[in-house]
């Protein structure tokens, strides 16, 4: 791993290609790509290129709106065969090509309304390769602990179907 875990940094399931950790109220993803920085920056900023990679495996992304300037709005719609379309949207805050940009990343969570907040992206040139860092500003270390712990609850409870059946019994 290129990144050292310190007392305040907590590993959150790094793989051999992607480092994932939390630090205070930030959840961070880091990965280095075998491509020059200008190319990687363009992949993020060109509406024709974003759909080539944005979103988890098995999803398709359409760029509905992308006004790349401070206060400009963006909106991507993600489709997948097993669920309804999900819209991700927000505003650009700061743009400093090709090194850094910050935007708000928002989406609607059923039962909780619009959720999200600022994310910072850093693009570092490493001798012709590019290290990309995405930092999700979650607000507090407690929020991160709780968010990740919610996955543990799901494990402790077992399958949701079983739980729903149990609750349906009254």
């Amino acid at each position, binding site marked *: 791993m290129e990144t050292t875990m310190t007392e305040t940094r907590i590993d959150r399931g790094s793989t051999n290609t992607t480092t994932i950790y939390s630090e205070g109220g930030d959840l961070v993803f880091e990965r280095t790509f075998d491509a020059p920085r200008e190319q990687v920056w363009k992949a993020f900023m060109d509406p024709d290129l974003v759909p080539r990679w944005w979103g988890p495996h098995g999803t398709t992304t359409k760029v509905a709106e992308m006004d790349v300037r401070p206060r400009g709005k963006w909106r991507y719609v993600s489709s997948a065969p097993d669920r309804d379309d999900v819209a991700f949207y927000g505003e650009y805050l700061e743009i400093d090509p090709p090194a850094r940009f910050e935007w708000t990343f928002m989406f609607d969570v059923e039962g909780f309304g619009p959720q999200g907040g600022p994310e910072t992206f850093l693009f570092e040139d490493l001798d012709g390769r590019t290290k990309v860092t995405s930092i999700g500003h979650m607000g507090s270390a407690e929020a991160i602990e709780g968010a990740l712990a919610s996955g543990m609850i799901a494990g402790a409870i077992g399958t949701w179907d079983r739980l729903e059946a149990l*609750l349906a019994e009254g």
Partner: protein
Amino acid sequence: MYSTFQLYNHEVIETEEDALSKTFAALADPTRRAILARLAEGEASVKDLAAPFEMTQPAISKHLRVLERAGLIEQGRQAQWRPRRLRAGPLREISEWVNQYRRHWEESFERLDSYLRELNDKQEQGNGDDDDRDPNRPR
């Protein structure tokens, strides 16, 4: 997960604490997680919930209030007693959401890696003498 922000002249002003942040903060405590796991087995009274912990009922009630405000449990309406029940819907939503957020960036980066490799392979094939290619870049 985040507090909801609004922008005004580049100042970021925090609005009311959003429900998801409250919910995650509620889950940050291991006692509360244990209470939820117990309630997954069926509704229970405050007395029953306090039993496994060396805690007084008022102390447990404090935890229950946090869980209620976070929308994770609700009180039954029987006249004689108010059992607490799990609200499975919200809990499932946030559990899945965290996994989704993690998958989003982890897998987007995987796809980005594939796209960039494909792009650079095409460039190498298409241009025998590409001036833009870094001669020091490892093959």
